[in-house]
């Protein structure tokens, strides 16, 4: 027990320490990471992991908070208006210096409302053109556009079927699907040719599109399929496993995904924008934005994502008679996305 005579000094010290610490915490820059979906999502977890890895390297004192617009991956029907209201309430009460908004929904329902503000900087992580959210003229917005590794897919096609192929892309009719469609359509596919991009609203339409693709294409490009409804007009979403397995086994064409979940759930091959690398890139942008947030320093310029990874299921590739150079298999092994025989959902 502190001697009674030194109690006033000790009390003054404790009070001073408490005041200093609390004041310091109030003055620390704040970073809010807003994800469109839930923290249990595979892609979201990978992005978060990248962000955290980069933040660990940062030694500047910083207050960080994560917010997810959906509570779980199993929330099939997200009430986006309610989720947006809640997210905006978090922003308005917590008052971050920088908002890292990830996914199209996070921009559409939340981020765009803060474009042009002087008290908040936005770092987006999206596949769609940022201009579609009103970010083009906003002085407080920067970010990373997630670009599909289409050039790397073209490189890969030479081992799949032949020198000049017809490609049909299939995705879900939602903001993510539309963003991916935009990239696919704007890409120069030469020497191959894009036969078309089809976005569907439900599982029956997806199945029909897969069957029909064989009529005018040589390769099926499977875009993001998360959230595809089982029935027309609503109901539950189809699971990754069912959708990927069915697509891989029923498609007459070799199917190449752009998300790891396609191969993890039964597909043969995917060339995927690396979510962890995207997270790291976003965190670097956010820290740069944060550095000058309070004194009005310059924002870092927007960037495109640059890193990608390969996901492989050798058993399915063999079934289709596709043989890739071993470097692809080693790349997949290095990124823990090599799915060996019997592994339906667990990467090895």
């Amino acid at each position: 027990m502190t001697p009674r005579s030194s109690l006033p000094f000790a009390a003054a010290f404790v009070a001073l320490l408490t005041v200093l610490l609390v004041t310091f915490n109030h003055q620390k820059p704040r970073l809010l990471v807003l994800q469109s979906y839930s923290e249990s999502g595979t892609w979201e977890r990978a992005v978060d992991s990248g962000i955290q890895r980069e933040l660990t390297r940062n030694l500047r004192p910083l207050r960080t908070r994560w917010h997810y617009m959906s509570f779980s991956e199993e929330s099939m029907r997200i009430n986006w208006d309610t989720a947006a209201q809640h997210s905006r309430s978090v922003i308005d009460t917590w008052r971050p210096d920088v908002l890292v908004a990830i996914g199209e929904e996070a921009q559409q329902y939340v981020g765009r409302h803060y474009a042009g503000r002087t008290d908040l900087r936005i770092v987006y992580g999206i596949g769609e053109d940022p201009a579609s959210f009103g970010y083009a003229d906003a002085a407080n917005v920067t970010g990373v556009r997630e670009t599909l590794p289409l050039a790397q897919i073209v490189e890969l096609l030479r081992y799949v079927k032949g020198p000049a192929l017809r490609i049909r892309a299939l995705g879900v009719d939602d903001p993510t699907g539309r963003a991916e469609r935009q990239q696919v359509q704007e890409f120069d596919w030469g020497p191959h040719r894009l036969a078309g991009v089809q976005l569907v609203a439900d599982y029956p339409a997806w199945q029909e599109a897969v069957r029909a693709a064989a009529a005018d294409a040589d390769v099926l490009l499977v875009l993001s399929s998360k959230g595809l409804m089982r029935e027309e007009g609503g109901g539950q979403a189809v699971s990754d496993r069912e959708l990927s397995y069915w697509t891989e086994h029923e498609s007459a064409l070799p199917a190449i995904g752009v998300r790891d979940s396609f191969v993890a759930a039964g597909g043969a091959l995917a060339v995927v924008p690396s979510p962890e690398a995207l997270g790291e890139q976003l965190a670097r942008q956010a820290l740069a934005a944060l550095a000058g947030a309070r004194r009005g320093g310059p924002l870092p310029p927007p960037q495109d994502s640059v890193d990608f990874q390969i996901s492989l299921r050798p058993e399915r590739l063999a079934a289709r008679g596709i043989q890739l150079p071993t470097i692809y298999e080693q790349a997949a092994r290095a990124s823990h996305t090599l799915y060996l025989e019997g592994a339906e959902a667990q990467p090895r």
Partner: protein
Amino acid sequence: MQAFIAAALRRHPLFASCTPLELSRLLSGTQRLQFAAEAELFEAGANADFYYWILEGEAELLAPDGDTRWQLQAGRGFGAEVFADMPRRLVTARAAGPLTVLRIGRAVLRELAAAHPELKSAALVELAAGLGQVAAPAAAGVEHQSAAALSRRQRIGWLATMTLPLAAYEAALYGGLPQYSSIYLGLFTMAALMWLFALVDEYVPPLIAIVAMLFIELVPARVALSGFYSRAFLLLLGVYALATVMVTSGLAYRTMLWTLLRIPDRPFWHRGALTVFGFVLSIVMPPSNARLALLLPLYREMDSSLGARAHSREASALMIATFTGATLFSPLLLTAKSANLAAFMMLPAQVRTEFQGIYWLVAAAVVAIGLTGAHLLAMRFLFQPRRSRPLPRERIVGQLATLGPLGRAEWVAGIAFLVFLAGAALPQWHQSQTAWLAALMLVALLALGALDKKGFQSLDWPIIFFLLSLDGFTEALNYLGLREVLIGAIGTSLDWINGQLGWFVLLALLVTSLLRLAMPITAGMVLSATLLLPIGTAQGIHPWIVVFLTSLFSDIWFLPHQNSAYGQAVAGGLRQRCDNALFMRYSWTLNGLRVLLAYASIPYWRWLGLY
């Protein structure tokens, strides 16, 4: 005779609930005395140093007024003022006829009363009953003492602690350091000032620092609490549990008594025994304060039995032997010093594996042989008594008889100690790490009931938290890149070392001694190791040598405030019984010897391939 006294003590209602270990210790401070009729045992107003228990005859107590008197018969006690911390006798006591009593010393009773508060209450009731026959003297009234005023030094310390860390923070920012480094420097300054001015207990400053770092998220929890995540936590718990059980089971005390009976009954052997006890305790008892606490009662018993004149060379030699026995071996074994365990965790994994067993002692052999040899030679030749007095062997036999056969807890403690000793020395037999072996001993002691809930609560948690907090505090230094800042700041200024161990020893001596001027041993050593390890690594010095040198040099002390064990020895009667100037001269000589032996180790370390 001793058996008779032991039996009489067992029958005493006050001591009925004592364990054999406590009775054995009580026996060391108990004498059977006979008084002729009319002999005066003590006088009112005299110092209260003994409690009396009438075996035969009658005692007469007289109030200071000279009129009130009453008799006490066999089976009654008097002189209970000793329990009340009352320095003076309230009454005079005489033998009403031939009187035989047991006389029990105040020191052993105070130790006993600390463990048995009910004993103190019962004695006070006895005292109150006696006082009912007389009017309580005014002098015996309770004095209300005001709390001791805060010293000027402490006032300055608190004011400095509230201002200088902020100044250090601002200065660091001004000097171009990043904010996170400046905050750390502010917290470091705070901790150093609190240590320097002894404002709070030693373990508090690093705890404040890591809580502050966590509160503002300066470093992640895995860094600030790295000590609590690490193997050090279980290693400390295991070692401290073993130490606790060794003491509470009575095994340590029994072993010391047993050894005293078997060594030649000459002064050199008495002192040598205290040194050897210190060495054996060092194996499982990291804090030298704990070892000294265990050795001091034995010292008091030996000192009172040998009856050397106060401040004589013989009396001084016994205290020096006790103090040196408790402190000399600290740098020589991994488990002999709390800071060794903390610094051990900073070593690379390969070095930890190599030095976790007996190899630490092997590598420290030159210092171990040099220090022990010099100390034993000094004990043999420098402190010759005028006449040799024997130990009270009969009493020791009686104490051992009172302890009875080895109890279950002693068996468990003994086996656990031997298993740990063998496992630490020869890790190849269990194919695991010393930390996990210590943890295994901990759970074994818990499962076998040798360490019950109360015993577990009585572990030295402050020192455990202190070490683990220090670990986090130093880990934060690395995490925030301050180690690199330090190396960068040093730049080429240490190029004169040029990988030469001789120069590095000098640097280690300077850094450790300077830090130790302000810091206690544990903090001083850990911070020295933190600062010197990167420098040593850059100079190609083996990391263990760096840690060992900081451990060895952190034991160097000149001023009383630098060594808490010295304060403990003073409280244990150093100044009453020992020539303080002689004691200090001896300590300073050992300081010089430590430096010489560090240099003498260089060829040996080269031979071992460590340099």
